[in-house]
């Protein structure tokens, strides 16, 4: 009897201890935000992403399991800018006010980001996607990770104030590593400043700005609409006059047209990682840039050594 009581008390104490130190469950919409949250949260967080690696987040269809993830979430991190628009409907279904816009467990990572290509809705958008409030691919500028991780760290501290120091230290460690690598990346691409490219979609403005590249045109100007031959002909003559060095291709798009253009122009087609996990080498946020920078730099070096 007494032994039973004692074991019960111990079990209860253990449970309480476990729940106190239990990791925060964070749901990020994309793998990139998940990677950055892991970098900041370390072992304080269990991070899941809603969109699997390598899937086009703008064409993503959610499933019942996503509701489950959100129901258990202590924190939600999203890209915003309409990129992961489907999250709103999911959160409404879950009905937890804290993970809705304005809630204390909600992070819109686009807050404070200097956005590019702000165009009004209804204006013809030659850049592809329905980018109403600016181009949403801002995580592809590694320096913006400083801003993004700040938003994430702030929210994590809000949810777990007792771990403030560890979160801040994690972030500092990550940013130190990021800065060292950023230096390397910039050096690797510095000799090719102004190099010209054609991209399949308009996914690379932030990447291009950070590394001083020039994306002159896009193969598929409207999402899901095959380019017209006249558009391709214009693009080819534009590419010739601006001496395009390579075609940038998103891994989840069909390759035919990109390969065709590459062949016509006699330049390589480079499959770049658009998100963590979309190419095998892009295992985490830093590896994504290692891979993309190396791919671009190698291609450019091969063309003018």
């Amino acid at each position, binding site marked *: 009897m007494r032994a039973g009581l004692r074991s019960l008390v111990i079990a209860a104490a253990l449970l309480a201890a476990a729940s106190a130190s239990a990791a925060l469950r964070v749901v990020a919409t994309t793998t990139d935000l998940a990677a950055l949250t892991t970098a900041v949260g370390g072992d304080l967080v269990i991070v899941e992403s809603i969109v699997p690696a390598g*899937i086009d987040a703008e064409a993503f269809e959610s499933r019942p399991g996503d509701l489950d993830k959100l129901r258990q979430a202590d924190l939600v991190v999203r890209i915003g800018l309409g990129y992961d628009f489907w999250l709103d409907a999911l959160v409404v279904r879950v009905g937890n006010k804290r993970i809705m816009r304005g809630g204390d467990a909600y992070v819109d990572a686009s807050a404070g980001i200097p956005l590019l290509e702000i*165009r009004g809705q209804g204006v013809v958008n030659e850049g592809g996607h329905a980018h109403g409030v600016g181009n949403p691919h801002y995580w592809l500028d590694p320096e913006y990770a400083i801003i993004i991780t700040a938003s994430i760290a702030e929210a994590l501290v809000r949810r777990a104030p007792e771990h403030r120091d560890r979160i801040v230290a994690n972030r500092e460690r990550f940013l130190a590593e990021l800065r060292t690598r950023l230096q390397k990346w910039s050096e690797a691409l510095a000799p090719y400043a102004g190099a010209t490219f054609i991209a399949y979609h308009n996914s690379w403005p932030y990447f291009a700005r950070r590394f001083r590249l020039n994306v002159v045109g896009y193969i598929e100007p409207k999402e899901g609409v*095959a380019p017209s031959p006249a558009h391709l002909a214009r693009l080819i003559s534009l590419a010739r006059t601006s001496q395009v060095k390579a075609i940038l291709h998103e891994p989840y798009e069909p390759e*035919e047209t990109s390969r065709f253009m590459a062949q016509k122009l006699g330049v390589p087609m480079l499959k770049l990682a658009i998100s963590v996990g979309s190419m095998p080498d892009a295992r985490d946020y830093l590896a994504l840039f290692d891979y993309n920078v190396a791919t671009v730099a190698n291609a450019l070096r091969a063309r003018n050594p």
Partner: protein
Amino acid sequence: MSGISEMLTFLALPFIASVVFVLIHAYLGVHVLRRKIVFADLALAQLSALGASVAFANGYDVTSPAGFAYAFVFTAIGAALLTLTRNLARSVSQEAVVGILYVVATAATILVVDRSPLGAEHVKKILVGNIVTVDVAVIAKFAALYAVIGLLHWWVRRPLLSLSSERGPEGRSRLEVWSWDFVFYLSFGIVVTSSVATAGVLLVFSLLIVPAVIGFTFSDKLSFVLLIAWSAGIAASAAGLACSYAFDLPTGATMVTALAGFLVLASLSKVFIVVDAERRRARLQRAAQTAVVAAFVCILVSSMWLIINPSGDQPLLALLERATGLGSATFLSSSEGDTYESAARDIVRFQDEVDRLDAMEKSARYQGPPLADDEIRRIASYQQTFNEMTRGEQFVRNVLQTKARTRERWIIGLPAAIIAIAGLGLSTRWFSRRRRGEGDDHSTYDSAEV
């Protein structure tokens, strides 16, 4: 001149590819129409896509021999299922089975792709396709493959054609029917599997069905049907490709539309041209009468719509305004008109500003001193402001247009409605009187013949 030569260098290969496609698909289309299984191509193509996705999920490249083997096995399974369901035709239409096969194969592909997301682009490719980027090697491969299948079909044309005909499998053993059906479906599956990957589902379906339908419009004799189908298919492909280039449109969708246009032309010429003079006259008359009545009905409906809801979209009125150059401004006071016009000018001006900032930021990405984050933020907020102002001017224009339309509702809507009603009444009465007169003519003609 350079435009045309550039167009030719760009469209020569796609055109050759579409000729190759038309030759085999229009022929198979004849079979498909006779067998009444028009969606079988979609089902087989989707099954092969499922095979490719399964191959991908198991770690094979789609273009590798293993990838091809998977796609082939799945197509063969589809062919076998279609073969076995011929006997269902008595109780349920085979078309139903074909539809189920297609939907299930599509759903299964989605499920497989969900497990191996990196294969998603192959599914996308099959849906869209892009005939513009076809290269010589691919065309040569297709031509060889289709030649082999075409020869095979020519060699065994007798059993294949009779099994596709109305009479069906009379006087043949069940095993014989099954084996010929399987040969047909398997070769059919191989053809559409290969073509769908290049041209996309929509175009392949149209190339298969539309030329054959055009052929059957004019003849029942197989050789004529094929000749007509082939020439119509090739002409429509050429027209579609040319339009796609000239008007800057996606190629596959334009070619599908061009094929449909040829079908409409063919039906019209069947009705109005390939008939004797008297019937042609009668039909032209009836068509003209129908057009007059339809025009009056359109005017009546849209004038009623203007009266009921002047602030709604007014497609016919907008068309009229564009054609006459008399816009909504005509019905505004001069100060209102000025506001209306200046709002239009401001919209252009604001959007020019947005574009100018965009261009400035874009060129600073790679030349000159880079813009600091705060400068980017400032540009972004300017752009946002200009976009808001554009929306504001747009709102002003909408309000003024509604105001003008509310006035037009009585000045234009009411008279137009009265004219349309009067026109409808007069024309239908006149037409029916004429028809009665003609009917009398015919009866005398008939009695004279007797």
